[in-house]
């Protein structure tokens, strides 16, 4: 009993006070910047085809933020900007004209009815559809004492019946397609669909696999795209916050 209390006092407060302005280590590979001269980079160095040189773009929906292009080519740089979520698939494509500040301002389109319905509390059901457990571990970390997502009323729940939306991780295998669709239908309306990580947004490193079935994504509307490989907890929490808060 006293040991437990001592440990508790010793640990003190662990939570990050201001999630929306939390500092990020410089080494983190986040929002990419394309500088002059990046056209000559070899696009084959990218394992997922996220880097295109004609015209010059990086698609954050495909990017695994592995840094291979940055190491091979000085004109590409990954900044530590971690607010990467967007409501629009097209906006995930970074061009030489893009810069992080403008991206953060414009990437998430805030809708009145979403803020009104989900702004105070958002319960999510996560579906791992052939994910590698990377995104899953980071989503679990969102609820730990450091990030403490629950303080904003955002939680992962056990049943889709209790949820306001689903978060999909992984490239969606054939074997998971049925369970995923079933889960979606079990969530009461109105509901959100959030794609989390490069795999779910584009198939990522698995995009050429013959074992995938991504029809679900064509059938149903997607509300929010959160890039990353895996998605950093700060990226996830800030992405959700920017979508459901004014």
């Amino acid at each position, binding site marked *: 009993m006293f040991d437990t209390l001592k440990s508790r006092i010793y640990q003190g407060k662990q939570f990050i006070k201001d999630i929306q302005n939390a500092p990020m280590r410089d*080494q983190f590979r986040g929002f990419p910047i394309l500088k002059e001269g990046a056209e000559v980079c070899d696009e084959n160095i990218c394992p997922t085809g996220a880097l295109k040189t004609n015209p010059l773009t990086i698609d954050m929906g495909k990017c695994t933020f*592995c840094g291979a292009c940055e190491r091979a080519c000085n004109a590409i740089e990954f900044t530590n900007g971690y607010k990467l979520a967007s409501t629009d698939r097209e906006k995930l494509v970074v061009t030489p004209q893009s810069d992080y500040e403008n991206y953060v301002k414009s990437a998430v389109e805030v809708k009145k009815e979403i803020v009104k319905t989900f702004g105070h509390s958002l319960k999510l059901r996560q579906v*791992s559809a052939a994910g590698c*457990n*990377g995104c899953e571990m980071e989503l679990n970390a969102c609820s730990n004492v450091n990030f403490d997502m629950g303080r904003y009323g955002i939680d992962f729940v056990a049943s889709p019946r209790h949820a306001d939306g689903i978060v999909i991780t992984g490239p969606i295998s054939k074997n*998971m397609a049925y369970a995923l669709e079933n889960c979606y239908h079990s969530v009461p309306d109105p509901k959100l669909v959030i794609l989390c990580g490069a795999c779910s947004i584009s198939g990522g490193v698995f995009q050429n696999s013959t074992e995938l079935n991504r029809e679900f994504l064509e059938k149903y509307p997607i509300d929010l795209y959160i890039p990353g490989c895996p998605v950093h907890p700060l990226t996830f929490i800030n992405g959700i916050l920017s979508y459901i808060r004014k």
Partner: protein
Amino acid sequence: MLKIKNNSKVNLSDIPVLKIGELRDEIIKENKRPIGFFGKDWGEGRIRLFVILEDAPELLVSSAIFEADEKSYECITNEIPSFHIYEREFYEQFGIEPLHHPWLKPVRLNQDKYEFFEMKGEEVHQVAVGPIHAGVIEPGHFRFMCNGETVYHLEIMLGYQHRGVEDLMVKNPSNQLAESICGDSVIAYNTAYSQMMENLKNIQVSNKAQLIRKVCLEMERAAIHIGDLGAIAGDIAYLMGASVFGATRTLVINTMLEFCGSRFGRGMVTVGGVNYDLSDEKIERALKTFDKVEKDVERMTNTMLKNSTVMSRLEKTGTVSEERAKEAGLVGMAGRACGIDVDSRFDFPDKWNEELGIRKKAFKASGDVNSRFKLRYKEIRESFSIIRKCLAKLADYKNDPLITNGEDMAKDAFVVSIVEGWRGEIVHIAMTDNDGKLSRYKIKDPSFNNWYGLALAVRNNGVSDFPLCNKSHNLSYCGNDL
């Protein structure tokens, strides 16, 4: 059988080709632990079956060819039970039936054809869970056969995570793909893949790169083990432990982020070496962090283990006896917790074990959750000891290159690369054709062996203890499903 070394290349033509009957006799005579048992399309409807057995510090390799009209053989499982999952996988991938196999069920495909065991009688009922579970975890289906509250047997049906990784590896191998096979063992998987390619391309990795890989591998082990101690604490509703271990794990993975830009070590290891150097400043900061981490883990573990309500939940829950564990062929941490002496870091030692004085330490195993809890704590401390030794040694190799370039891939080669990830041995096996291209890539995750161990662990336990049994094993779905 041909004797080969871990992490080395042999010519395909050196591997003996037997008749399946002869091969079967030889396997039964050797009676060794299987590490690989897989087929390869050998042209004209023929299938070549490769077998790799552990004979530490070496490996035994042999093979047999099935002609186009040979579609079955007498199974090995009835003689050596640990072959059960390998034979099921071989049947699923190549359609050659092991006759009289006790449970020839699907491994990854055709889940709708899976026939569960049935049990009849009063108070008998089934509980079906999954593929989508209550928590944020990967998908898998569990079927409990219960007698009242007690689990009689658990069947685990997997395959939901199947992405065809082995085929993708042959077509388009990359470090990024290797990292995404199992995202909680990034360093281990990527190291196994890189070692494989380095053998094929004849690359000698610099000492510096080897040490950095070792540091990261042990950091990965420590971080996940600390997280798992927290998860076990969470599953017995000891939330203090869950919070403290969770926060402590964050310190380790954030150090990894400082090293290579990813909390799980993505981008660190590459074919030929490592991508990022560790500056003195980074090392100094990391060592300070590790001091704190070790202290915090020790403090919290001791607090927990002194607590009688904690111990009553951990002790004698989910026990697997050493005998059963050996039969099922458990490997890695789950095996060691039952008393099986298997750790590829020491079974197939590299030169650093001797140079840095890294020795195997004994562990008194009892096979229950308590044993798995304490083993994790022991391995965390050992990992930090190895990390410190490697980081100290790194100063000797300041001028070594980070990445070494190689030649084209060797033709008609066969390579086995084993890395001890935090779950256990991760085995990558590759073959090249006569153009020097990959023609077969086989991956074996420790979970492939250990899922059956979880099924054994929950027998005669309350169904409510399943989460605890499950979390104390923490097996991989994607590593199994590939």
